[in-house]
């Protein structure tokens, strides 16, 4: 049988989960024997192909991210949520206690070093913020949850290995973390 295909997307998050994935270090060589990395932030595919495993790193904070999550769900047999942002919403949801207007004005008008006499707020060619930042499973069905900020490299690898063994993984308590 051909290698299972994996695509990963990086939505509303800090990329720490992808960095933690790279922290499997030399073991990546092994992994790449067994799986095929397609579209990821570290490869050059612009289009998400049909894949066996789709990984979401990050929560859903704007229209574009929502669209991407849905695209990935369509293309992937199994969806993994990587990290607190994808699983619980994470630190992004701290803006949910304020209106998007206040958050944007806070960032682009009221910050000390900003010189913005006309009160320009980015819009149009940039995707609009959703009223609230949300966990991935508020937008698409998620099959495997891997909490952690970020999850340890070992945990990320464990989940892939379980899937390669044909099991639907569940992160065991001794590997699970929320920070």
């Amino acid at each position, binding site marked *: 049988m051909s290698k299972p295909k994996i695509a990963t997307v990086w939505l509303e998050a800090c990329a*720490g989960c992808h960095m933690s994935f790279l922290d499997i270090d030399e073991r990546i060589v092994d992994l790449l024997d067994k799986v095929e990395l397609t579209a990821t932030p570290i490869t050059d595919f612009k289009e998400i192909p049909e894949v066996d495993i789709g990984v979401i790193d990050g929560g859903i904070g704007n229209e574009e991210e929502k669209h991407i999550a849905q695209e990935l769900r369509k293309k992937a047999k199994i969806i993994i949520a990587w990290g607190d942002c994808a699983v619980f919403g994470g630190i992004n949801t701290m803006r949910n206690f304020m209106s998007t207007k206040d958050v944007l004005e806070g960032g682009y008008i009221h910050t000390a070093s900003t010189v913005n006499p006309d009160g320009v707020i980015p819009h149009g060619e940039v995707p609009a913020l959703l009223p609230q930042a949300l966990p991935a499973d508020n937008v698409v069905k998620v099959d495997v949850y891997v909490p952690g900020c970020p999850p340890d490299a070992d945990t990320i690898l464990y989940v892939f290995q379980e899937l390669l063994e044909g099991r639907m993984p569940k992160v065991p308590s001794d590997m699970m973390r929320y920070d």
Partner: protein
Amino acid sequence: MADNPAVRKIEINPITRIEGHGKITVNLDEKGEVLGARFHVTQFRGFEVFSKGRDFREMPVITPRICGICPVSHHLASAKACDMILGVEITPTAHKLRELMHMGQFVQSHALSFFHLSSPDLLFGFDADPAIRNVVGLVAKFPDLAVKGVMLRKFGQELIKTLGGKKVHPWHSIPGGVNRSLRVEERDAFLAQVPGMKETVREALGLIKGYLAEHGEEAKKFATMETAYLGLVNGGFLELFDGDIRLKGPRGRVIDEFADWEYLDHIGEHVEAFSYLKFPYYLPLGFPNGSYRVGPLGRVNACDDIDTPEASAELAAFRMLTPDGIVHYTMYTHYARVLEILYALERMEELLQDPDITGSDLRITSNDLQPEGIGVIEAPRGTLIHNYWVDEKGAMTQCNLIVATGHNNYAMNRGVEMVARDFIKGGEVTEGIMNRMEHVIRCYDPCLSCSTHAVGKMPLALEIMGADGTLLRKILR
């Protein structure tokens, strides 16, 4: 653009293999000539806003979540701002442990940028098949080099984990110092690995020098622009952790040099509607004249010299490239980056050999809080500024962050436009051209998650819009 019937719009989205995502749009006229090109950062999270009301002591743990690639930079810049709020001078041991972790950060982050993300272009060439032109291809074709790069990054990450408990989002610096000392056996273990790591870096230096020599003119011309350069210096020497902010002009004159806590008098941020990423500039020259570049190229241009022997010698060689010693070639950022890994390793060695490094004098406490704290540090991608204001009990009332990548925002926009103009002829847009434009961004290795962080997994499209604005033709890669 809708009013111009024949304008075509090309989107490269996302820009992969940079740590953080953006999108490039190119607008062509009916003859397929470039009208303009822009680099968009398409996401915003609002840390400056939602940190209000938190205890300032939490900031060194909150702010690293801005960026998973250089969390240590935020951790340390934040801790420095917090020291200022406490009004304390931290102990020598704490200061050196922080700088040590910072060097680990430079090694891992620069290694990632060079080996995992940029070297594929150098080794496979811009026009190679995207399916192999990435770290996966690298592992397949150059396993030896790939593994060395991986191990170099691992070395930096392990150092961070030892002090901070985790490789990503560590937990070590606190207001007034650090929460853990370095054990002697740990010190010895890392010290023993440094020479091997230096070897890897020398190899990388050879690689990048060779590439640049081979592609002489193209490499020198690629997205090259004359700008001013900003970076921290300490008595004129390259400084990554704790120094004054220096702005050096395109002709090598020091335009300004000021203490980090004076930054607000010198640096402002401009806002454009098309990007969530702001445009910092030097206030006296205004925007865009006051735009400058930061990061490896910015730092090695801004400083007079480097105070570690091997890196100093390499810098001298680097300076020989141009008559006035100022290197504007954008591609040479990779060169400067590898040179900095060398410095980071040498500095790390010095620190590990310093008796203070295993000291147990970790913290200074204070109970009278200052109303404001500023922490400035050189993140791998450039100067990072954290500025907090607190009430008398220490709750955050205001927060201002200028992140490394932001400083290069204007340069990146100009860069993609230059490349678009140079390479896109008669509307012919090849994979190679696409990737060249991306590589402009990649040179600056922007950590867009820092700056706000972007994303957008639209397929790359060449769109030809009709007079009525309807889509006539769309070519998907």
